[in-house]
């Protein structure tokens, strides 16, 4: 991978080619074709939305930027805002709009906005094979004439048309297409142009495009104008208000409708669709997955397969192989021997290979216990994602999520949370609306165990009895639903009904799945290993200076008196704050010292206990310090309260 860290000098010469388009149109595959790069995910300034950037294969001086998929411009989501920022901030040589050849009207409705920004562009109609198989025929030459820009039909997965695209990029052209908006809008555009001119506002984008985005309330453009126009911003707002006053409907809808009608008129002359051609097998498979009767058995089968792969193979076979045989049998004895031989002092030995050693605890945990579990989880997650099943899952779980004030889209972060709650907290951005993100984040922090913790919990409770496992599941799901039900009623705002695209069901492409898994693993390891080491170091220091015993003592009334656990369990809760699975494993280490009821109480409490430091930091980043503090203040008492109630009920029943 030849990543170019966007050197300012090159960007100034306009060497960046930006891929822009709807989600699921094959932009990332095309990015790979153009750069040879699979993953080069970097955080875009001011956000963590993923924007990939790499050197171009076809021109050593150029770089290619893969922007997040956009439903439409003006921006309404974080992904769309990142795409707008790329258009505003990069000095672009060319915009490559990647569209779905079989959905030409929809593709052109985005073109209608891009043609206004005054940047040289080309249009790529990707997935042309799918269009052909559905009997959709696009007259590319005619479309080129209609748009005044080069148009290429490609099949990025097979490389078809990519050579023509790279050769034709030099012909990128600024479209000159008259898209006529209503007179009041045109007057508003002129008024805004005058404001820009009067206040000396200049941008790489055309004033007309900027004016249209501002009229449509694009938040990025609005922020930019507010910052740059200063006093003139009031005049810009007045110009927009005047246009608004001419219509009964919201202005963004008026503008969007004009673009759709334009797209429709172009599509009608340049494409023809011979009868319905959607492949019936894919359509039927997709429909079956959301069928009220068949959908649930299919879901159970998927969950079972996932359990077998992640729970049995990943957390069982692989962990045993890596943790016991590789680390326990080979690596750790060698590291311990080496350190003990060369260490200058006994405390250094303890720091590296002691009970709370950076290697024996921190690295062994991260690499031997967690890595096999999250690897298998992310692989399974990638397969489901690439197959198109997740969107169907959001449909069949929609009713369940409506009970907790969310819609089915929340299933994706929730399931991802079973892998890594920190990453899933970031993924709540796919939810529309702050209220949904808040509820989902809270519920994940409270009651969704990450894969590492889940592995430990399943291992411990599995050893107790199947009934204990069922009791734990009922407790955690019960708390999740009850807390969600309450949150939905207490947090102001309306629930957003489900609207989601169902991408075609297809056999997952191994390369795609591996690429996504590698990206997630890299992210996970970069985030997790330092935290593991910090956590282990904190435990080492607490133990060394004698604070750990005091914490154990301080927590005794709660842990021993209320939860009925041995006093040493307090240490597990301290560890649990560093990482939840750390805490669970702390209890695991007590093993035989716990009765079955104590094991259940401990596992329920530690599952509901505060999320790990990394998750807390992510919550602070996404929701702010105040909300994160409020969540912790709710979660900790809830965990101990539920744990105590479980103990009480357990004692009554036994």
């Amino acid at each position, binding site marked *: 991978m030849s990543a170019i860290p966007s050197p300012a000098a090159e960007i100034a010469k306009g060497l960046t080619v930006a891929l822009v388009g709807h989600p699921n149109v094959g932009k990332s595959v095309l990015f790979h074709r153009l750069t040879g790069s699979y993953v080069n995910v970097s955080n875009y300034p001011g956000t963590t939305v993923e924007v990939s950037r790499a050197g171009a294969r076809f021109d050593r001086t150029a770089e290619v930027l893969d922007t997040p998929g956009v439903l439409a411009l003006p921006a309404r989501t974080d992904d769309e805002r990142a795409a707008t920022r790329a258009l505003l901030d990069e000095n672009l040589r060319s915009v490559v709009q990647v569209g779905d050849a*079989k959905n030409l009207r*929809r593709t052109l409705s985005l073109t209608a906005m891009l043609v206004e920004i005054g940047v040289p562009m080309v249009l790529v109609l990707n997935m042309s094979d*799918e269009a052909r198989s559905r009997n959709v025929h696009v007259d590319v030459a005619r479309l080129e004439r209609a748009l005044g820009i080069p148009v290429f039909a490609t099949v990025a997965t097979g490389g078809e048309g990519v050579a023509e695209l790279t050769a034709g990029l030099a012909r990128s052209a600024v479209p000159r297409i008259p898209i006529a908006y209503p007179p009041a809008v045109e007057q508003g555009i002129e008024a805004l142009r005058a404001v820009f001119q009067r206040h000396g506002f200049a941008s790489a984008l055309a004033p007309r495009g900027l004016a249209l985005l501002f009229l449509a309330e694009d938040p990025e453009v609005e922020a930019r104008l507010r910052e740059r126009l200063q006093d003139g911003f009031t005049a810009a707002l007045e110009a927009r208000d005047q246009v608004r006053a001419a219509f009964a409907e919201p202005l963004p809808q008026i503008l969007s409708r004009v673009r*759709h009608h334009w797209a429709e008129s172009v*599509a009608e002359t340049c494409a023809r669709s011979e009868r*319905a051609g959607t492949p019936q097998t894919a359509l039927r498979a997709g429909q079956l997955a*959301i069928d009220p009767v068949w959908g649930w058995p299919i879901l159970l089968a998927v969950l079972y397969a996932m359990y077998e792969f992640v729970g049995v193979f990943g957390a069982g076979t692989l962990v045993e192989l890596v943790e016991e045989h590789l680390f326990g049998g080979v690596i750790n004895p060698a590291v311990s021997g080496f350190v003990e031989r060369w260490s200058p002092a006994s405390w250094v030995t303890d720091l590296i290979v002691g009970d709370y050693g950076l290697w024996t605890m921190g690295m062994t945990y991260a690499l031997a216990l967690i890595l096999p579990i999250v690897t298998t989880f992310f692989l399974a997650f990638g397969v489901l994602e690439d197959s198109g099943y997740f969107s169907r899952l959001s449909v069949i779980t*929609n009713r369940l999520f409506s009970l907790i004030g969310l819609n089915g889209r929340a299933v994706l972060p929730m399931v991802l949370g079973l892998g890594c709650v920190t990453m899933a907290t970031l993924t709540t951005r796919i939810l529309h609306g702050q209220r949904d993100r808040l509820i989902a984040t809270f519920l994940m922090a409270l009651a969704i165990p990450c894969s590492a913790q889940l592995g430990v919990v399943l291992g411990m409770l599995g050893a107790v009895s199947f009934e204990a496992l069922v009791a734990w599941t009922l407790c955690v799901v019960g708390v999740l639903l009850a807390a969600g039900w309450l949150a939905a009623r207490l947090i102001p705002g309306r629930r957003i009904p*489900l609207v989601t*695209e169902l991408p075609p069901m297809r056999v997952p492409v191994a390369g795609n799945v591996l690429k996504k898994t590698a990206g997630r693993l890299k992210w996970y390891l970069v985030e997790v290993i330092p935290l593991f080491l910090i956590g282990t170091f904190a435990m080492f220091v607490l133990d060394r200076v004698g604070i750990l015993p005091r914490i154990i003592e301080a927590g005794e009334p709660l842990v021993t008196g209320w939860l009925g656990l041995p006093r040493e369990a307090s240490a597990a809760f301290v560890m649990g704050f560093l990482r939840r699975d750390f805490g669970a494993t702390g209890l695991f280490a007590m093993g035989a010292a716990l009765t079955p009821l104590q094991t259940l109480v401990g596992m329920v409490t530690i599952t509901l206990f505060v999320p790990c430091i990394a998750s807390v930091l992510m919550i602070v980043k996404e929701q702010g310090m105040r909300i994160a503090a409020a969540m912790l203040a709710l979660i900790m008492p809830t965990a101990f309260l539920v744990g105590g109630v479980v103990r009480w009920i357990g004692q009554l029943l036994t």
Partner: protein
Amino acid sequence: MDRPAPDVIGDLPLTAAEPGTAVVVTRFGSGIQPSQIEQLFSYGLVEGRVIGVLRQRPVTVVLIDHTELALEPAIAAAIGVQPQTASTRC
């Protein structure tokens, strides 16, 4: 894209359309928030568009060109449609 003119019979909510039929979108009711209307527009669900109705349970699923879109009943009920009796194209 070749499309016959819709044959207007009457106005009904999308939730009342029979699966397997094609309908023309006629209006968006006040039950849908403006931001969601924008979202529907971006999928190509605009007034005058002919869409195929694939199913009504557990949610309404429509086909817009070759895009399958799932809509919760609360949204689908607020979308006015007219049945299209001429040959369908979705």
